[in-house]
């Protein structure tokens, strides 16, 4: 019998460590013949901590497990029964079955810290075959057939990049994995690194073989300590096994790789900035051309792909480019991982074929909106993307259709917003982000985003002026045209899409000085609803500026004193504090 505990960052944050230790303790104390293992994240983050009990071929999944439940779960397992109260619901199980998992095929299933588990399910067979076939062109041809496009954001055909690096004349060549997942709201790369690091390694060796690169570098965010730890371990294991090193599989092909931890700069997701950072410089983008395929890391030919892109490679080589291309739409092939977050019932990672309608992802897989509120928009593509409104909820999720809405596919973050989210505040949030993360090299991005942020700040503060919307639009166009790299060129997108679909919300802020979502504190007022107020005084005690008082038996808020912190609204047990 085997028990597997979901041990990714999200599982750990939900309490998986306590569950694991309790299991370990009990198995040891009772001297049970149970193999206790860990796995990465299966993607159902809202149900963590999750454990799987393997009784021969029968797998039982328990969700939201706490140490107190372990007794009952173990007792049932030993009697070949199930602890029915804690089992995953039929509905949640179906969600898993509705997905098509390729990049995430092993995440949450195998032990990421064991190379044996990876090889036992066919791991490293794809690279072995590539090397024994001795035909790098065939590898590129297979990737071309699959239609795989870059999963990091821009969606550039992977085979094209590989081919360019292969045909490039310099030597040595480098293959780099961009694991600087900086887009707030996306975490699929972390999940692959934590849950299936060998898939990434194999994908990179295959890439290296196809273009003649002998060194791989993985540039990982410093904010992902667990991912770095597991990848380090996986690289060591791969070296011991001879999958990395000299004369792989008896051939004359050498390949080794190393990790470079990033130091916290969003702009380093841009490939030329990433190269600068790898070289030990400030992560500032460079003009293209020359493209990295000609002159990249230390001026040598360099190919850069995203984690999720590499995670598809071994599968494609094993199952054929054709079967990958049989999924998806005409121009967007295969599957894509999405990170569902925000005001959604079932947040987590899902992988579906390209081309499914956005509605299916949000409502069928994600379970709809938290607290059954009304969906307002879905933000895709992070700070470079935009908000897709409810009216476009049937949009097919593929590169072209998403771009047509004004958003971008990006790395696949989907932040769901309901009626309580203010779209102007959202635009301000993203501009604040890009303004802080701008490297400062080009004026359009450095000063342009700052000017846009100032305008958005004043609109949210109730000081918006006639002409502000037009000013935002003008600035947006200038920045898009003038900025040096992708960060600046796409920075205005969140403003442009919210202006396109939620212009009236901007107008209400500017001309009527109201915030329809009741989010912008300068534009809202708190009142006590007399019919609901029980005069308990909890709001009076919670007010940090003594703005609430009781006079002649009625509780009143002094609007002059009120700083609109919302504490009274939060603490009132009778919902008697109204926000307008």
């Amino acid at each position: 019998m085997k028990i597997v505990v979901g041990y990714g960052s999200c599982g750990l944050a939900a309490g998986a460590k306590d569950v694991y230790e309790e299991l370990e303790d009990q198995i040891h104390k009772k001297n049970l013949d149970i193999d206790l293992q860990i796995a990465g994240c299966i993607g159902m983050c809202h149900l963590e901590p999750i454990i799987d009990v393997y009784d021969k071929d029968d797998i039982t999944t328990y969700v939201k497990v706490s140490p107190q439940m372990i007794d009952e779960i173990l007792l049932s397992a030993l009697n070949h029964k199930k602890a029915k109260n804690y089992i995953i619901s039929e509905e949640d199980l179906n969600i898993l079955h509705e997905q098509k998992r390729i990049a995430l095929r092993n995440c949450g299933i195998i032990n990421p810290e064991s190379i044996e588990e990876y090889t036992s399910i066919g791991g490293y067979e794809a690279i072995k075959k590539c090397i024994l076939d001795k035909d790098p062109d065939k590898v590129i041809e297979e990737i071309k057939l699959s239609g795989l496009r870059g999963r990091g954001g821009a969606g550039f055909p992977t085979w094209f990049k590989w081919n360019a690096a292969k045909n490039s004349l310099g030597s040595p060549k480098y293959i780099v994995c961009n694991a600087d997942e900086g887009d707030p709201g996306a975490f699929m790369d972390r999940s692959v690194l934590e849950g299936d690091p060998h898939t990434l390694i194999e994908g990179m060796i295959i890439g290296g073989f196809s273009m003649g690169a002998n060194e791989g570098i993985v540039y990982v965010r410093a904010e992902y300590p667990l991912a770095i730890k597991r990848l380090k371990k996986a690289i060591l294991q791969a070296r011991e096994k001879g999958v990395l090193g000299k004369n792989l599989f008896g051939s004359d092909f050498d390949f080794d790789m190393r990790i470079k931890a990033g130091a916290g700069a969003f702009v380093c997701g841009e490939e030329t900035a990433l190269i600068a950072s790898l070289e030990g410089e400030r992560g500032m983008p460079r003009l293209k051309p020359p493209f990295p395929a000609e002159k990249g890391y230390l001026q040598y030919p360099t190919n850069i792909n995203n984690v999720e892109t590499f995670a598809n490679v071994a599968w494609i080589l094993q199952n054929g480019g054709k079967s990958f291309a049989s999924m998806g739409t005409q121009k967007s092939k295969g599957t894509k991982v999405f990170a569902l977050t925000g005001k959604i019932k079932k947040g987590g990672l899902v992988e579906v074929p390209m081309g499914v309608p956005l509605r299916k992802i949000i409502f069928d897989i994600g379970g709809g909106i938290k607290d059954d509120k009304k969906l307002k928009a879905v933000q895709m593509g992070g700070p470079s993307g935009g908000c897709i409104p409810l009216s476009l909820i049937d949009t097919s999720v593929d590169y072209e259709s998403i771009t047509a809405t004004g958003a971008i596919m990006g790395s696949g973050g989907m932040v769901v917003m309901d009626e309580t989210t203010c779209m102007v505040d959202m635009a301000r949030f993203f501009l604040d982000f890009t303004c802080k993360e701008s490297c400062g090299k080009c004026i359009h991005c450095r000063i342009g985003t700052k000017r846009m942020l100032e305008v958005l700040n004043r609109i949210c503060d109730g000081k918006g002026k006639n002409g502000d919307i037009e000013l935002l639009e003008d600035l947006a166009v200038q920045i898009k045209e003038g900025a040096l790299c992708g960060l600046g060129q796409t920075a205005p997108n969140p403003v442009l899409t919210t202006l396109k679909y939620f212009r009236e919300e901007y107008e209400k802020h500017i001309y009527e000085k109201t915030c329809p979502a009741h989010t912008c504190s300068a534009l809202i007022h708190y009142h006590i609803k007399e019919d609901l107020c029980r005069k308990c005084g909890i709001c009076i005690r919670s007010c940090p500026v003594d703005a609430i008082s009781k006079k002649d038996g009625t509780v009143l808020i002094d609007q002059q004193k009120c700083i609109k912190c919302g504490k009274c609204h939060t603490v009132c047990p009778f919902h008697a504090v109204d926000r307008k």
Partner: protein
Amino acid sequence: MKCKDFQMLDPILEKYKESSTNLISILQEAQGLYGYLPLELLDYIAQKTNIKASKIHGVATFYTQFRLHPIGKYLIMLCQGTACHVNSSKLIEEAVCDELGIIEGQTTEDGLFTLNNVACLGCCSLSPVMMINDTTYGQLTPEEAKKIIREIKKKESKEV
């Protein structure tokens, strides 16, 4: 800090002496060793590696991971990612500031806590999230966040 204290860094400088591309790794390990990067330390690295002090300073101030000032025993990283923002991370920040009596970027007088806002911790489905040293806390409420900090305070006062 005296100059001779910097000699702890020498094995690291030796390890990375091959190439100037290792500057970020040197700074990361130096910060791991000393907790922060005092200016004198940057000068010391410049002397030893022959990399210009201005360049080292430029790199150290470019990346958010590097800090030129000491931090508290507990580094609270409050996630300000999109998902956390949508799920009211602002209220968590207010609660933590309220509990500690400091604002973002500051350290408490007793040197226990430093509060930093960070872009995204990648635990979006558990938002709002904060990380204290290496532990992640998810699905926070303002009360929950205060409770976590109070527990650390309690633990610390016992140890003293």
